[in-house]
């Protein structure tokens, strides 16, 4: 991954944001908030942790696939030019991840299934003797409302799947509003810990904190969760107050302002 070495994780995160704005802009709306909240998470994961040749990547919430696509060129998983087709008819880059989605090992349009898939991949690695292979699963906090996540959490801890790391984008956003207004998930870390997981609760826009958490997660013999506290509007000041983080409306004028902001920062 020589290409990513040229980019600091913080700068890489802004590259993800810029690409996500370009991908959403032609449609006028889309899953931009997910890319904004998880940009540092993907950037840090793809810089010195996730190795596509050795590890598996699960993006459990299918609409987060935009962030995986936007991060993929530096990891050699996708040509940057392909991103322009995102969300268009007949494109392999569908807005909600499917079986044909490139750049990931597994993604799920129906929420709550990704951790089970990740546990299955980790179990397969163990049964097939792939020592050193890790499984990274990106989950969202709203998804924790699905009971299946906790079935999988119980299973992974019981089977001591220490090669499994969950990157939890805790952006407090779901379709009907803030997750915290709909279901109380706190204490999130306490829940995972009580299930037998190592939990690291960090500022999800602080790449140094994310990097340290990922290192600690890898070193811990238990399955681990990195709880990344994030915002669906982070890194884009031009977005209006009260923008719906789950599905951001991006008219042409706003898209232009967003591109200007990000291009200026990356200049």
């Amino acid at each position, binding site marked *: 991954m020589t290409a990513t070495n040229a980019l600091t994780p913080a700068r890489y995160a802004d590259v993800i944001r810029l690409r996500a704005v370009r991908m959403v802009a032609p449609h006028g709306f889309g899953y931009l908030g997910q890319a904004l909240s998880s940009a540092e998470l993907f950037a840090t994961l793809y810089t010195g942790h996730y190795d596509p040749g050795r590890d598996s990547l699960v993006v459990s919430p299918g609409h987060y696939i935009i962030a995986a696509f936007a991060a993929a060129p530096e990891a050699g998983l996708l040509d940057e030019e392909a991103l322009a087709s995102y969300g268009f008819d007949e494109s392999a880059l569908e807005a909600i991840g499917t079986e044909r989605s490139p750049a990931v090992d597994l993604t*799920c349009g129906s929420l709550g299934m990704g951790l089970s898939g990740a546990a*299955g991949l980790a179990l397969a690695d163990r049964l097939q003797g792939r020592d050193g292979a890790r499984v990274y699963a990106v989950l969202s906090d709203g998804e924790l409302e699905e009971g299946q996540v906790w079935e999988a959490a119980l299973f992974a801890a019981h089977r001591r799947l220490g090669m499994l790391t969950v990157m939890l984008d805790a952006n407090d956003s779901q379709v009907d509003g803030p997750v915290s207004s709909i279901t109380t998930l706190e204490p999130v870390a306490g829940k995972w810990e009580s299930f037998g997981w190592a939990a690291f609760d960090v500022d999800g826009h602080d790449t140094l904190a994310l990097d340290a958490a990922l290192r600690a997660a890898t070193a811990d013999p238990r399955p681990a969760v990195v709880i990344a506290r994030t915002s669906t509007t982070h890194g884009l000041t031009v977005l209006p107050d009260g923008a719906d983080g789950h599905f951001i409306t991006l008219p042409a004028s706003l898209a232009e302002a967003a591109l200007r902001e990000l291009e200026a920062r990356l200049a």
Partner: protein
Amino acid sequence: MLKQPYPTVMKPYGRALVDLARQRPEILCLSGDLSRQTEIDLFQEQFPERFIHAGMAEANMVSMAGALARRGFLPFVHTFGVFATRRPLDQIVNSVAYPNLPVRIVGFMPGLSSPGGPSHQAIEDVALMRAIPNMTVIDLADATQIRAALPSIAGVPGPVYLRLKRGEIPVIFDDAHEFSLTTAQALIDGDELAVIASGMMVSSAIGAAAALAAAGVSAGVVNVPVIKPLDAEAIRRTVSRVSAVITAENHSVIGGLGSAVAETIAEAGLGRPLRRIGLRDTFAEGARAAPPLFRKYRLGTQDIVDCAWELLRRPGPPPPVPAIVAAEGEYAPV
């Protein structure tokens, strides 16, 4: 074919799976906490490293099985039919069927074979599984068929739902029986009526055909273990030769074998009168034993005979089905 009452054997599926697993190292066995009841305690004893206890967590079990299949394993997932299909339906669709992965979902205790009430009676599992693209749906009739079918089932490239009776399994077919994934099997030829049956109702259909033959009605029996993909050609061929058709399934009449046959007849424009023996869009209830439920909900051998008699407009009362007394360790259909 053997004669009623049939001898029975225990755990033919469990033994067949162990034998197959010896030749197929990629087979994994997943349990949803009903290991003895689904006969896979035998697998656990033989191959503990390939046995994955998922606990009472069907959603996780099915999604995990999908991921294991992506990595070249052949996962067989086991629980009762109700829990195998109702609980993880979205997981079966998204984690297994849509990616077209070779996961085998094995659901025991079909239809009214459980006296445990609606929570334990899988009366719509075939309908649910049949509606899912890529899914193969199989309802087996006896121990011989189970042993013959398992290697073929293991070879299906996509997902399979396999429906199996629990406990003592009758031996209806002799050792020469051949299982086919693609062709339905005429067990008895008849030129007036065709009884098309699957699973536990195959033995009832055989008994009904015998009783009808004794009363001068030429009734054929077709065994349809593979409900999807249905051998539509065999259905068309059979139906075109007779004047009336009865389907018999230990399942709701909505969405299962009866529906599949009705669709085939209608699409072929054959226009034969059809009656479907099965649960008539109702839940059953708990009971002390299963046979009274088969009688109450009219899934007995006599019910097939009565239905045939009315359908063929024969005069007088239908012939009574001779009572077959099954001794301990034997099986006769209701």
